[in-house]
């Protein structure tokens, strides 16, 4: 690699970082950012979306991530909290011997080997090439096997009919659903609503990014500090990791 070429690369990298989305025409960008794929391109296994949750920063009693999820995906419309869909929930843990307490959000862990996909009789529960585990409601028959198979209690059944959906997040009675990692935002180069809300609240306990990209903030972080997969003994290779548990 010549020196000139190196300079050019540095310039391009700086331009990409500074200019953000420089659009020449709709859909065509001066500097293509690796994260934002064009709408016409399928997702690939080159990307593995993941999330890192720093439990030392997560505040007990704070529910910003839950409210953001409910707002984005139009959950929690009814007044039946026992049966309402829940895509993300907060858990408070206490180590009995030492009295150490910590709080963390729990949701679909976006496993590389998801048990919900193994048990689904129709193929509705599936893993996208980029590691996001989803339910195809067009195929889901609402049998709820996946809810039983999931070790993280991450899936919910929709008991009530809905009319107030976000146009980007179709959902309705009779199907199972769970955290989509805000796939409609991620496909357009955004971050999940919970991550955004956590940062907006100043906690910065959630970090979202591409685990396969060695330059991404999340990949650097998991390389530097010890992170934990919940129930790692199940060998599910989770996309969501926790720090400080």
């Amino acid at each position, binding site marked *: 690699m010549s020196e000139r070429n190196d300079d050019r690369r540095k310039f391009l990298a700086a331009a990409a970082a500074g200019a953000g989305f420089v659009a020449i025409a709709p859909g065509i960008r001066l500097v293509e950012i690796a994260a934002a794929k064009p709408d016409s391109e399928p*997702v690939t296994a080159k990307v593995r979306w993941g999330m890192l949750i720093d439990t030392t920063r997560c505040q007990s009693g704070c529910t910003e991530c839950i409210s953001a999820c409910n707002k984005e995906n139009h959950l929690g419309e009814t007044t039946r909290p026992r049966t309402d869909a829940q895509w993300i929930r907060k858990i408070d843990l206490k180590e009995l011997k030492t009295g150490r307490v910590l709080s963390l959000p729990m949701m679909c862990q976006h496993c590389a080997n998801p048990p919900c996909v193994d048990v689904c009789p129709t193929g509705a529960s599936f893993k996208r090439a980029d590691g996001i585990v989803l339910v195809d409601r067009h195929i889901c028959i609402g049998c709820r096997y996946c809810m039983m198979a999931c070790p993280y209690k991450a899936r919910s059944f929709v008991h009530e009919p809905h009319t107030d959906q976000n146009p980007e997040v179709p959902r309705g*009675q009779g199907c199972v659903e769970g955290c989509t990692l805000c796939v*409609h935002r991620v496909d357009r*180069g955004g971050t999940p609503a919970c991550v955004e809300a956590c940062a907006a609240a100043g906690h910065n306990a959630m970090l979202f990014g591409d685990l396969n990209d060695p330059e991404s903030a999340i990949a650097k972080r998991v390389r530097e500090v010890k992170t934990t997969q919940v129930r790692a003994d199940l060998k599910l290779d989770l996309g969501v990791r926790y720090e400080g548990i």
Partner: protein
Amino acid sequence: MKAIAIAVLWGLTFAVAYAAEPGRTPLPAIEIAKPGQCVEPKDVIRRDHMKFLRHQRDLTMHEGIRTKKHSLNECISCHASPKTGSVIGEGGFCQSCHDYAAVKPDCWDCHQPKPGQKSVAGARP
């Protein structure tokens, strides 16, 4: 036998004639609020819109392809009634024709029949 055949033919001729006559047969009230060019020729989209939607739905769901051409949300944003803001209900673009054809699509069990798609911008760290 021949007589029956002729009678049937006569009957058919009348039926066709009556159908063509305005006012005799109820027709779907299709209101097009924003006249313009659809993404496909009119005769193609009328017959095959369900195939386009189905194809696009699988691509979007499983491969994350979010092109606008055959997206249901794009249909809705163009065809929503200015009165109700929806493609279903009284005078709704989708419902008026499906009622006429006695077809009950289950799109609206999950999908939002009103436009309002938010485009999410914002860069990742």
